[in-house]
């Protein structure tokens, strides 16, 4: 009976949460075009750089995004010239008619000096496919479109000057150098994605 309960719990959980992309997975849904703040339609394939792609599930209002997003900009400044494409994706479809509208996204990006793509994920399709659950939620793909790192940006959202572990920057450095990434998976707090129903 106990075993049966555990199995039922696991089945329930699998329905509740789409599993996160496994390391080594190929970049999914790379050709789906999404509306970007520039007014153009952009896919993950378009956003890809010659040496990789950084995907950030994000939004306008989440306090953890607001705490971390200065690093979206500095990471772009550092790694875009090294051939890493960067795209932030807003999958909060439940709020596309309010705080996460395109107009608000454009306003937010301008205020924060976003220097990367910032697109709307209609139907939260990409978030579901990636198994992304929160904002910010990071996925890093190498030049062969394989997932090499997922999780957090670093270990201190609130105080950039107190960061001890620069997980993502280290992962990108190692990816570019062809050396081992460790850790390849990290976790951080964030706002649950407001999925389309």
């Amino acid at each position, binding site marked *: 009976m106990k075993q049966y*309960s555990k199995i039922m*719990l696991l089945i*329930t*959980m699998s329905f*509740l*949460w789409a599993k*996160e992309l496994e390391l080594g997975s190929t970049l999914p849904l790379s050709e789906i075009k999404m509306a970007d703040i520039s007014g153009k339609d952009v896919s993950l394939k378009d956003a890809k750089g010659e040496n990789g792609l950084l995907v950030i599930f994000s939004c306008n209002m989440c*306090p953890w995004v607001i705490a971390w997003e200065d690093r979206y900009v500095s990471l772009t400044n550092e790694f875009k010239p090294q051939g890493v494409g960067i795209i932030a994706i807003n999958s909060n479809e439940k709020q596309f008619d309010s705080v996460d509208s395109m107009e608000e996204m454009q306003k937010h990006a301008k205020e924060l000096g976003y220097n990367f793509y910032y697109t709307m994920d209609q139907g939260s399709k990409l978030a579901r496919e990636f198994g992304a*659950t*929160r904002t910010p*939620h990071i996925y890093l793909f190498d030049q062969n479109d394989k997932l090499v790192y997922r*999780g*957090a940006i670093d*270990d*201190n*959202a*609130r105080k950039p000057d107190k960061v001890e*572990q620069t997980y993502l920057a280290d992962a990108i450095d190692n990816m570019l150098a062809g050396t081992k990434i460790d850790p390849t998976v*990290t*976790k*951080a*707090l*964030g*706002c*649950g*994605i407001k999925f389309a129903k």
Partner: protein
Amino acid sequence: MNRYLLIIFILIIGCEQPDLQHTTAATLQDFYQLEKGQNAVMLNFWATSCEPCVAEFPMIVELAEIYENDLSVFFVSMDWLDEKEKAISFLKKQGVDWTTFIKDEKDNAFINGIHAEWSGALPFTILYGKTSGEVVDFWEGEQPDERFTKAVNAAINS
């Protein structure tokens, strides 16, 4: 004299702050495991800046009252430590007069220390069986009241 004592007593009660203890995942585990064999346990991870957390909060307080003989509810704030006054003020408004916690550990270690399947998204709720002390149910994000009630009953009977 008795009148003065009564006034002092009222002042003390009126000024009482909710008990918000700093915690790591390990110390939290030590604490809720003391309930095993006596009460089912619900841990709710929340933050004042998390809208769905705030929305479901009064319902959870109500559940704690309804099932007070069989269930211990512990709220664990994910607010930043330098903003813990916000959490204290919110808890006070919600009438939470029992021990609650605030995270005092790096995210990665804390989240993994609570449950391997928790991604870090808020709110997060997890229930432990009254007799077994084992995980009975857990979920991220908003859930309807019925889901909570069902999980609480399952935890009480586990």
